């Protein structure tokens, strides 16, 4: 049973068809990667799921249709988006940012436990709790954005380009945490330009090309696929 399913999803920006009928699914507990070139529609797909872009077709989450629902309602139904460029609250402290992640929850004891857990995943954040988020480095902001999203106890975590603009060492750190969070059972849909990295952590993947899914399969298959190798992995055929 799939937790999230998209069928023939289309998104138009003005006269431009950004998504031309994307179909995909994410099962509970999976880490699915969505890879593709710039402008292929990866971010748009996430925005459509999160309710930030108006879509047609079918988007179902846990049996419920998400189409036409407001972003905050979708967030409350258990989908957390870590937006491209992180979207941390720059003038709020790290601690306040994390508290904002738990905005829709009322269970204080459980929130405190989750907060401890997030801080154990990102010890760097624990050292900077009283610092404003805007003064953090790019990598730390990414950690904060992921930590904040985890504090909403998402049933599905949408990650948009977590490696963007980060030093290689930090990228490794971030992906280590992604792997750990996934192992703990959080379902994830990961959008990445760095296809190598994405396919290493994912179980399955979809390749988007000009607003359509061109290739899909297990991550291992895609890593061995000559077309994927040539186009996205930088391996000459």
């Amino acid at each position, binding site marked *: 049973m799939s937790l999230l399913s998209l069928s023939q999803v289309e998104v138009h920006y003005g006269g431009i068809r950004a998504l031309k009928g994307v179909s995909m699914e994410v099962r509970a507990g999976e880490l699915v990667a969505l890879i593709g070139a710039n402008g292929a529609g990866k971010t748009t797909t996430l925005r459509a799921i999160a309710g930030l872009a108006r879509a047609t077709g079918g988007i179902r989450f846990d049996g419920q249709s998400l189409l036409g629902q*407001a972003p905050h309602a979708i967030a409350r139904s258990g989908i957390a988006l870590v937006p491209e460029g992180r979207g941390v609250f720059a003038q709020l402290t790290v601690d306040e940012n994390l508290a904002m992640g738990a905005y829709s929850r009322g269970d204080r004891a459980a929130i405190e436990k989750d907060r401890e857990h997030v801080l154990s995943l990102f010890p760097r954040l624990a050292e900077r709790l009283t610092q404003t988020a805007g003064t953090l480095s790019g990598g730390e902001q990414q950690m904060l954005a992921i930590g904040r999203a985890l504090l909403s106890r998402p049933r599905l975590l949408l990650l948009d380009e977590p490696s963007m603009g980060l030093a290689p060492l930090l990228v490794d750190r971030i992906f280590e945490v992604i792997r750990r969070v996934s192992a703990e059972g959080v379902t994830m849909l990961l959008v990445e330009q760095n296809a190598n990295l994405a396919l290493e952590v994912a179980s399955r993947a979809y390749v988007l090309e000009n607003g359509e899914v061109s290739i899909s399969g297990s991550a291992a298959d895609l890593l061995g696929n000559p077309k994927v190798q040539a186009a996205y992995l930088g391996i000459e055929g």
Partner: protein
Amino acid sequence: MSGAQGRRFPPWVGVVLVTIALVALPFALMQAGTAWVRITNFAILFVILSIGLNIVVGFAGLLDLGYIAFYAVGAYVYALLASPFFGLHWPFWAILPIGALVACGFGVLLGAPTLKLRGDYLAIVTLGFGEIVRILLNNLSEPFNLTNGPKGISSIDPVSVFGLSLGGTTKVAGFAIPDAVKYYFLLIVLLVAVIVVALRLQNSRIGRAWEAIREDEVAARAMGIDTTRVKLLAFALGAAFGGVAGGLFAAIQGFISPESFVLNESVMVLAMVVLGGMGNVWGVVLGALLLSFAPELLRYTIEPAQRALFGKSLVDSEVLRMLLFGAAMVAMMRFRPAGLLPSAVRKRELARLAQDDNA
């Protein structure tokens, strides 16, 4: 405000001292003339207005240039329900909530269609709204006379609390207590209530949601915050505060006309919020008091000073007042851009901007 030196006194000592000071104040002011008590009353009204506008501008970050319209709505609701104009004489305690609710409704009316706008665009629309309300008040004497047009509404009932009319002079144990002093106490009680409500709001879930929206609306939505509702709430609550202040204004003044609700007043209230420190309730209180009293102090000092120096009045005090006023605002923006008592978050914001500029 417990100092850094530690607590030498229990907190109630401060509360008692402030209470004594506030009770004694009008009697001290009366020595200088009852006019000063009246000036203080209007200053308190503007403090209430500023605290209300601060909810919209300071907490939620929505620039509102037509705020005085809600003040007008509250004032007219009071005037219509407690004057010979319609022959209605409802009690003050019944009208005040109605005024707040009607203003609230107008807040939603303004908020609902404009919530998609931000920054300058929102400012323009709210400015237009303020003007629409004023022009309506000016012209709604035809075909059905609702506002009496530019002539305004007069003989508005004074407030009456537990059978005691706050209008006119009351004799208490041989002391003559003028209406201004009685209103002062009513205003102080309401002001304390308004401050408590504002402080509680700031530290509530809604307060945090406003903060998030001000920072990053998309991220706020991703946190599950219903941004439309929360912004509308800011407009509605801010408007309600304005409505309450308006009702009090009508009762104290006894006469209102559209002239009292011009754009200038909106700008003045906004200046109070900005001068004091957007987002900080205590800062806003300070800003409103300063900007309310400064012109009056100048009025009473510039004229005599000119006469003493030149033997006659060379420059009209009104002109000088505005000049000094402008200079003070420019100096403020240069040296304390986050306001006199900035909120913690605003202080950080500006520090960050300065850093970015230097980088």
